[in-house]
């Protein structure tokens, strides 16, 4: 490539007579020496004018039917399309996740149920959208982040008959409510439950479609972010027999899934 060419590679020229760019000077130009047939396995292999039929008999299609069947009028009742026998039960594989149902009562948080769910979980994202958000950490390691659309308000439907005093929702504010935390099964073990920390925030955001990095939440002004509740470690024995069993069973299922 000439120095002029090198200069040209930076951008197209708008000039009609822009110079030709040499891509590879070691290669020939078309129209020079006739192209010689290349050898394939040391032989010159050329196509015959009238190729003879293949004599292969294995791995061939069935012969073309002599009579054409009349096309059907429609698909009729079709069977379900069949997935391979070894296809996973859920569409995509993943380590599965622990689903914790967490109860909040006046700022206190307790675990009230747990189960293992097979399959992938949406990738851990640091981003949250306005509203209620949770962050779960094991020690200092963030293991889950999520949005919770609503929890605290129960609403009755407006009266359909138009009685003026019954327009709009009948609103009841809840002081206790549940929400769900999902933690990838490969991010938490039963033994690390005591180090599990969950915080529930309300972030007011700025507008529709806003996202924020959860690590930035602490930098938001206090008027924009409120910590509603926290959980500092889970002691399975202290959760009650039933929840303890459910926790044990969830982690057992997670272990089995990981082993598979």
């Amino acid at each position, binding site marked *: 490539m000439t120095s002029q060419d090198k200069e040209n590679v930076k951008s197209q020229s708008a000039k009609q007579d822009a110079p030709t760019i040499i891509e590879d000077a070691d290669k020939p130009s078309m129209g020079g020496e006739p192209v010689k047939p290349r050898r394939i396995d040391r032989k010159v292999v050329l196509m015959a004018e009238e190729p003879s039929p293949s004599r292969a008999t294995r791995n061939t299609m069935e012969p073309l039917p002599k009579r054409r069947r009349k096309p059907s009028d429609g698909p009729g009742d079709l069977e379900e399309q069949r997935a391979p026998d070894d296809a996973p039960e859920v569409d995509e594989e993943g380590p599965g996740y622990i689903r914790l149902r967490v109860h909040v009562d006046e700022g206190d948080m307790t675990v009230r149920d747990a189960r293992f769910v097979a399959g992938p979980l949406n990738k851990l994202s640091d981003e949250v959208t306005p509203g209620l958000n949770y962050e779960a950490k094991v020690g200092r390691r963030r293991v889950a982040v999520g949005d919770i*659309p609503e929890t605290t308000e129960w609403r009755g439907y407006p009266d359909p008959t138009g009685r003026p005093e019954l327009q709009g929702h009948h609103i009841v504010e809840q002081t206790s409510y549940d929400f769900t935390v999902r933690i990838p099964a490969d991010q938490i073990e039963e033994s690390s439950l005591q180090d599990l920390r969950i915080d529930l925030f309300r972030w007011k955001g700025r507008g529709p479609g806003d996202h924020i990095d959860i690590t930035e939440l602490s930098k938001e002004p206090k008027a924009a972010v409120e910590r509603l509740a926290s959980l500092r470690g889970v002691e399975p024995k202290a959760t009650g027999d039933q929840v303890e069993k459910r926790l044990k069973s969830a982690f057992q299922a997670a272990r089995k899934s990981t082993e598979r």
Partner: protein
Amino acid sequence: MPDSVTQILKSGPPGTKINIAVLGDGFADSDQAAYNQRVADVLMDGVFGHDYFFEDAQAFNIYRVNLISNESGVSQRVYDEKGTPSDASDDVIVSTTLKDTALGYIYSGSWAHCWLESGANTGTLVDDALDTWVPDADLVLIILNEPGFGGCGGGGFQIVTMGGSWAVMAHEFGHGAGGLADEYCRSGTYSGSEPGQVNVTANTNRNTLKWRKFVNPSTPVPTGINDNPGDGSCAGWTEGTKPTNWSSSDDVGLFEGAQYVDSGKYRPVINCRMRGNSPPFCPICYTEMKSKMYTSTGHSFHKCYAGDFNGDGKDDLLIHNGNSILVYRSDGIQLSLVFSAVERVPGSWQFKPGDKFYIGDFNGDGKDEVVVYNSTDWVMEYLGLLVDDGSDGLRLVARYDNAMPGWQFQKNDAFYVADFDGNGRDDLFVFNGDNWAFPYVGMLRSNGSSFTVVNRYDANLPGWQMRPGDRHYVGDFTGDGREDLWVFNGDDWSIPYLGLLRSNGNSLSMARRFDGTLPGWQMRPGDKHYIGDFDGDGKADMYVFNGENWSIAYLGMFRMMDNWLHLTRRYDGAVPGWQMRRHDSHYIADLTGDGRKDLYVYNHEDWTPEYLGTMISHGHGLTASWREDWVGEWNLGSVDRFEVCDFEGVGADRNLFVHNQYWFGVMRASPNLSLLKIYYKWIHNYRYGRNW
């Protein structure tokens, strides 16, 4: 009948979707059909059959839990409301009639009691049902077998009777899924701080308003002020004259009255779904829903296809994402969603990530249909034909499982859309060079509702010995209305070959074979061919580009005449206006509508910026022009993909759909390359502003 579950919307693994559990209470064995119908009517056809939820159905799984109650109908409670129906504090229970139902809900029909209430064990019964039947519910819809009106919801739950409408349910999902505030008004004044929800505000400053990017500068802010605070009404447009084309649900301003007060708090539009239930979500609520659900939808713009699916002359857009398709209709100016299908279309075709789509008018009705082929996701290969369902959607009319008479599908079957019999209906050529002992070519004729193999070539085409590396193109080089087959092989022989096989509608015959050279052109393995009538004589001609086998890039124009390809023009290194480079890629299209096929050309590898250009044919040569780096607001990049189309319906291929993961654009080629539309993450026509 035992309890059971039916997943009625299957979008994906529960951990990647928003999961809705539907439970029924008071539905005895004999009521199950009514329950199923109610779910179908109100949830599937209602909520998920309209606007936002229709569009983003792929973000959701829906599990219909079929709980059998021992008795039909739900328990009843009668209150003496003491003449104050809005005040529950003085109410007295007159009677309670309990029924043995699956969940034990009690209907009262009293507004102040949320219309219904839980029985003694309802919480446990609901938890048990969810735990048993739904792996990971995010939202729970409970339908009571009760004809009276009512509904109560919160915390992701919605409990409704048979008397409600889908629109109210969609409004409630706005709370449950989107965290949206109510926008309706009651008597009262708000004096608190800025509310957290995105669709209500106390801020009247245009410069800091949280939805300011959706407010047209010509719209006054505030737009509507309540002149009679305390009357309980929501303000409409009060500040000056309302524009005649103002949309009460789509045009954004700042209207006083929202979230249970009539002054001091404002909403974005006059009437959104979060106020009036029936209108669609306003731009603010829609954008919030879309943003929150974007990851769960799994949507991207990677797989886009152009086709005129309603026959109006304007090319529409089909987007395939995993197990769903979306169809957007072009009106020549913008795209609007008309069809959304998750998991399957009636017929049935079950969508999968490995589906390949081929667009053509297979029934000759002037509208494009869709052939879909999947050879990777199932235990066998499937081919389906999807046609217009009469209401902007698609339905399957033919499906072939594993084989059709005369052709056994294999993984690497490659299809080419071509009307090879000239009857106005597109047909298919199919080639497989990899999966059998020798290659095959099949001619699959369409009768509009099915395909028939009219001929098959095993190992050889007339005058052509097939090899795995054969590359095929279609184009009518005789001008008889039948599209012919062109085949090139540059790799499997000692010299490259190009064959032109004429179709008579039932079979192929070798019209001309070129061995090693074309007139004025030495064929090489890296030759790339673009078939199209560049001189407007009704016969398909050929462009050939080679950027890799020579010291410089070459582009040849070969005119078809008397069964012979004649060199019209060869460009060595440059077309006037375009310096050719190794990685130039081309798209053939009649950009100007003059009946001559031109070329789009794109290069994102050989220059510092990216270039998109056009090469216009005047029959004997080309004239090029280009844009560098940007086309309007579109920043050209290596990830961009292009689909030639006639989006504007001008009778020319003068538009390009350009797309990558997050961005979708529509470009116009002539008179100069320009950008008509640009969309980010989703296609929505905001009246003002946009979602980025």
